[in-house]
Structure formats: structure tokens, C-alpha cells
């Protein structure tokens, strides 16, 4: 049978599919993390300018990518949910948000750890740092809105609307912050444009895939518990819970 998208749009069937996919992505993430960290910590050479401090990029860059990308995926599911009124879409958006916020926070945290030895300061009001911080604020706002609304349908739609208006704003925020930054400080501190060693790039890409796999596994695990909670009155959930 061909892969039928509509078939899996039903929470009952998606629950089983997610359950089968989680081990693959979960173990994949673990394996890729081990390989990526091995390359990053032992194989990749020490940077001649930044010393060993640069090695934090193996966590930092994938985390920053995922923080931004997960927001886009949330916006996508929110738009799909509002347009087609599919229940699963809102559940996916809810399941993704905590992982996205976590990655954004990790990106800021590891960025500070990298900035101290390299730039000599934990924090600068650099355009990227500032817009990542505002992205974290957006995540926090959406999570706070969800937790404040008890009614499930209202929470789904309100969160989706906020996610979408945030997504429209993200490029504007990014460019405004970038422009504000160039106006305020003349010579900004930037890492020198050293071209990246191939093995470093390889390590970073492996870690990026690890972050992807982890995000998928975490979101699927979370969406499974959301499905169980919401469909607890249905027959199939009762069967699973008893059997």
C-alpha cells in the first residue's frame, strides 16, 4: 500500500507510527552524537586562533539552527491546523515548542561559553545574539499562553495565531536588530573569517543530524503523550492502556 498522508493524519494511526519511529530516531540521535562528539573532541585539530574553545561550535551551531528551524516548523503546523482544522497539526506544534525553546536556550548558553574566552565577554549585543534572545522570548510567550489557557481548542488556536504572527515578525525583528547593531557599534567583534577545516565541518554536520534526530524523537514522544491525554475517552486508547 502506498504511503497515505491522510491515513496518518488521524491521531489513532499516527500514535502507532510515531511509536515505531521513535526508537529509530532516538538511537540514531545517540549514535550520531557519539560519532559527532568523537570527531569534534578528538579528531578535529585545534584551531590556531581560537584554541580548543572553538570546539563548543559542535553543540552551538546545530542548536542555533534547530532553534530557528523548529519555530518555522511550528508555524507550518499552526498554519495547516488553522487552515484545515486538523487536530494532529496543533498537537505537533505543541509537541515541538519545548524542544525548540530548549535548543534556543542551549544556543545562547553555549554562545556565552564560547564568547568568554574568544571575545573576552559573556555577552555582546550582536545582531545574531539579540535576535536569538528575542526568538527565545517568543517561545516563552507561546508556552506561557498555552499553559494559561485551560480550554484545549481555544489554546490550540490562540497559540497557532501567536506563532504565525511571530513568524511574520521574525524576519523584521532580525533585520531591525541587525540594522540597530550596525548603527550603534562601529567595529563589531567578529570571529576572523578563517575558512573551516573539512573535518570540523564534517563533525558539525554529524552533530546537526544528531540534533535533528533528537528533535524528531523528542517531538514524537511528546506528541504521543498529548494524543493519549486528548483521546483518553476513545475506545482505542482504553484498549492500549488496559492491554
Amino acid at each position: 500500500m502506498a504511503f497515505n498522508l491522510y491515513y496518518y493524519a488521524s491521531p489513532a494511526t499516527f500514535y502507532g507510527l510515531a511509536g515505531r519511529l521513535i526508537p529509530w530516531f532516538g538511537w540514531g540521535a545517540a549514535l550520531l552524537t557519539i560519532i559527532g562528539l568523537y570527531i569534534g573532541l578528538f579528531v578535529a585539530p585545534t584551531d590556531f586562533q581560537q584554541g580548543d574553545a572553538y570546539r563548543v561550535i559542535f553543540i552551538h551551531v546545530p542548536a542555533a539552527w534547530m532553534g530557528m528551524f523548529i519555530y518555522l516548523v511550528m508555524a507550518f503546523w499552526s498554519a495547516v491546523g488553522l487552515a484545515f482544522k486538523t487536530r494532529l497539526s496543533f498537537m505537533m506544534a505543541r509537541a515541538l515548542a519545548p524542544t525548540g525553546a530548549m535548543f534556543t536556550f542551549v544556543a545562547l548558553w553555549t554562545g556565552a561559553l564560547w564568547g568568554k574566552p574568544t571575545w573576552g565577554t559573556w555577552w555582546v549585543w550582536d545582531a545574531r545574539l539579540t535576535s536569538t534572545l528575542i526568538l527565545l522570548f517568543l517561545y516563552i510567550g507561546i508556552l506561557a499562553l498555552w499553559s494559561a489557557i485551560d480550554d484545549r481548542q481555544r489554546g490550540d488556536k490562540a497559540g497557532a495565531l501567536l506563532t504565525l504572527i511571530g513568524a511574520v515578525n521574525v524576519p523584521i525583528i532580525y533585520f531591525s536588530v541587525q540594522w540597530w547593531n550596525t548603527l550603534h557599534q562601529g567595529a563589531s567583534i567578529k570571529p576572523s573569517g578563517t575558512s573551516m577545516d573539512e573535518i570540523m565541518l564534517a563533525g558539525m554536520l554529524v552533530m546537526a543530524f544528531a540534533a535533528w534526530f533528537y528533535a524528531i524523537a523528542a517531538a514524537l514522544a511528546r506528541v504521543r503523550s498529548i494524543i493519549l491525554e486528548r483521546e483518553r475517552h476513545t475506545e482505542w486508547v482504553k484498549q492500549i492502556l488496559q492491554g
Partner: protein
Amino acid sequence: MGRFLLTVIRRDLLLAARRRGDWLTAQAFFVMVVSLFPLGIGADPQLLRSIGPGVVWVAALLASLLSLARLFADDHRDGSLEQMLLSPEPTVLIALGKALAHWLIYGLPLLAIAPLLGLQFALPAEAIGVLMASLAIGTPILSLLGSVGAALVLGLRGGGVLLTLIILPLYVPALIFGAGAVDATLAGTGAQAHLSLLGAFLLMCLVVSPWVAAAALRVSVE
């Protein structure tokens, strides 16, 4: 349609005129927040001049949020909002009218107060003019974006703080361009670019916000 919009605006203006206390509270809040900054960081005119535009703008954001928490809440509590939503007129016009009325009541007076605060912060006359221009373009943005937030948190416990959390990140471009216009004037580079971008952001908010706010109202009242 135009008449319906005017009716919504006139009704809110009338309600505000009957409750002058609320109106004065928001303006007093704005003045006090701005006046506290020199007390906290010292009265050096050079320092005040460099932080003045940003302080006035941040205070304007906070003052608008203070009043936005009640934008739909009072009408929701006495049931008149549901009656308005039941009317055959489009919800978008209700959202737009409410946002415009909010700007007339709470945004416009900030323009009149801002020059005095500019003097407190030792801003030159030219910069004060640009500050007023940036507030004139920027405060409608605050009312429009804020109406979305107010509609989303309608009737929730702790709605005021929640409104702050979800709306302040969205205000960032208005803050940057608004305060940036005055900074650019002080630096001698001219405020034209900032004011143009602020205007572009206003037009975008004018087109998008009422629709989202209307959708949010429907979700919240259902």
C-alpha cells in the same frame, strides 16, 4: 462599513470620557516611569541625552500594555462584546475600531507629554521634534499589535502579565526604529530612514493586525 467603524470608535471614546480616572492613570504611569530613570542613573546631561529616546520609548511600550489589558476585557465582562460579535458587521472592523480608539485615547496624549520629558532629558529641540514624529508613527503600531495580544488573553487569569510576555517581543522593531530615529538625529545622520521603516511597519500592522485580532476574538469568545 465606515459608519460602523466610526460608531465603534465613538463608543470607546465616550466610555473613556466617562472614566477619566483610568485615562489619567496611564498617562501618569508614563510620566513617572520616565522620570524615575534620572533618579536611578544620575543627572549627567550627556548621559541623559544618550538614553533619553530609548527611555521614553520603553515607557511608551509599557504604558500602552498597561491600558491594552482592558481593551476588550470590560466589554467582555458585561457581555457587550458578544453582542457586537453577533452583529452582521465584520469582526475585523470591531478589532480595527477598538485599536484605533485605543490609540486616540492612550497613544495620542503621549505625543503631547513627550516634549516635556524630552526637556527633562536635555534633548535639543530638533530631537524633540523627531521624537514626536516617531511616536506619532509608532504608537499606532503599539495599539494595533497590542489588540492582537489583548484578544488572545481575553478572560484568562493573569492576563495582564501574559499580555506583556507575548506582545513585548513583537514590539521590538517599533522600539528600534522609533528610538533609533531620535538617536540618528542626535548623531547628525538624519532620521529619514528610521521614520520610513517605522512607517512601513505601521502599514504592515494596519493590514495584518485587525484580521489576526478578529480571528483571536472569535477564538476567545467562542
